[in-house]
């Protein structure tokens, strides 16, 4: 069980000029245990701020946030986060990165290395465990980050546009890696992306944010496993049209519909 609840959460920042900006406005949301939820929205809509709030990296200006009724008061290994930018420690070898969280929690060396090796194998990096991050590609670094967060056995998995900077093929490979691992552990997932297709491939439910508010919340009933072809199904197209309209791409949808 790991149900994430947000009640009337607000987050206000003060810009360097002194102006106040409400990045998250009165957001109430329940993410059920084991649910895979994607948050999409245009740049600056507050989706990354929302994720950082749930991660406990920033305190909310007002409102309540909890996981299984326990208030979120700061970061916790129970809420693992994969960042948008490369966050893998460059001064640690791949295996030390993956076992870092376990080391922090006092797991003995033999056990944590065994766990780390197992996750490196599962993300397809079994042969680079002693490599420095500088020797790995962007896609491999993301695999290390995914292995790291899963090795720490979080109950909630938070992902902030983790694959945004990757090429199409690598992104699809990593979706599969992520879904395989999630299929085994079934953590509650909150995944931020700006890519509608990515959200449709991954999510049980898609939340759309605009101007710091939730403007749409829809369940995606497409059968799993999903493929790129699944996105061409009528149900998927219907969802996609609505989502693209939310992102201000309504004209594009109409154009596509009009084309023979």
């Amino acid at each position: 069980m790991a149900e994430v609840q947000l009640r009337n959460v607000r987050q206000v920042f003060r810009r360097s000029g002194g102006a106040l900006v409400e990045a998250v406005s009165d957001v109430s949301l329940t993410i059920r245990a084991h649910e895979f939820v994607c948050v999409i929205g245009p740049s600056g809509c507050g989706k990354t701020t929302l994720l950082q709030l749930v991660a406990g990296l920033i305190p909310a200006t007002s409102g309540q946030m909890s996981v299984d009724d326990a208030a979120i008061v700061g970061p916790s290994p129970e809420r693992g986060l994969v960042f948008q930018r490369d966050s893998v420690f460059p001064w640690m070898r791949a295996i030390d990165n993956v076992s870092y969280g376990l080391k922090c929690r006092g797991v003995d060396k033999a056990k944590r290395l065994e766990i780390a090796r197992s996750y490196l194998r599962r993300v397809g990096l079994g042969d680079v465990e002693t490599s420095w991050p500088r020797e790995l590609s962007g896609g491999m670094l993301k695999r290390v980050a995914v292995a790291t967060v899963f090795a720490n056995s979080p109950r909630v998995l938070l992902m902030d546009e983790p694959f945004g900077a990757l090429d199409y093929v690598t992104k699809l490979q990593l979706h599969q890696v992520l879904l395989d691992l999630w299929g085994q552990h079934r953590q509650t997932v909150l995944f931020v992306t700006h890519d509608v297709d990515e959200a449709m491939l991954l999510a049980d439910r898609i939340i759309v944010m605009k101007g710091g508010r939730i403007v749409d919340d829809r369940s995606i009933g497409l059968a799993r496993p999903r493929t790129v072809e699944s996105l061409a199904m009528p149900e998927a197209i219907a969802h996609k049209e609505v989502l693209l309209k939310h992102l201000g791409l309504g004209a594009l949808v109409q154009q596509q519909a009009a084309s023979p």
Partner: protein
Amino acid sequence: MKLATTHRLAGCAVTAGLAALWQIASILIPYESAPGEPMVPGWQIVATHTFLALSDYWAGGFGVAAVAQGGARTYAGAALAVLSNSWDTSLRLFTGLLLGGAVGLTCGLAVSWSIWSRRFVALPAQILRTFPMMALIPMFQLWFGATFLGTTLFVAFAVGSIFFTGAVNAVGNIPDIYVDYARTQGANRIQIYRSVILPAMFPELRSSILLSLGMAWTAVIAAEFLGAQTGLGQIIVSSQYFGYVDRMFLVALFLLLYAAITYALFERASRRLTEWMPREAATRERLVAP
């Protein structure tokens, strides 16, 4: 030919050229600082007469009598004099370096530890580091006398100021994402300092450490100028009284050698500690190093 070999050969050629220039200057400049004491001593004097004269600074022992007690000038006495005075200077230098490095680094880290530690440490440390260092030597002499403690504390002060500034800047430039990443994995503050802050700050702190190595040699010699009974700085000062430029020059060469060895050892150690850095960044770091 490999680039490193070319660099090394070029360095050797420049050094040999400088030595030749010195020799030419010793021929062209006939002045004397005192009767029989050339202002620019040639290598034939430095390698024989001057080196032998350093046995004047051997206090006696190991079967070699002190010149002051009637013993003859010998190469063994000269070598022992160089070794014992170098040992005294090095001990002061490295003790001061360790002490200053530890205090400067701790204060630098304390600035980022919490708001209260920043309030207590930042302003006093910033004020202390702006004191003109050389003007403090007489004060250190009066407070602690011409003792090991006085010299060491002076070196520590000089080094600590550089370490403090370097540590504050290095910590300030660590990307927040690494600290956030560690926090989400369950690292506590001590673990973050040990496994994130220290390794992440090292590449930037490296230039401050190199700077402080140079400063430490300057500080220890400057401190020995005033009243020390042993040490390479003391040999330079006592040589100055009698116009022994050749002895001053030879001791300066020893100092140059020791400083070069210190840099080389640190370079080797730091290369190991920055093994993880991208190659271009590591090369750039080395190219800008003094």
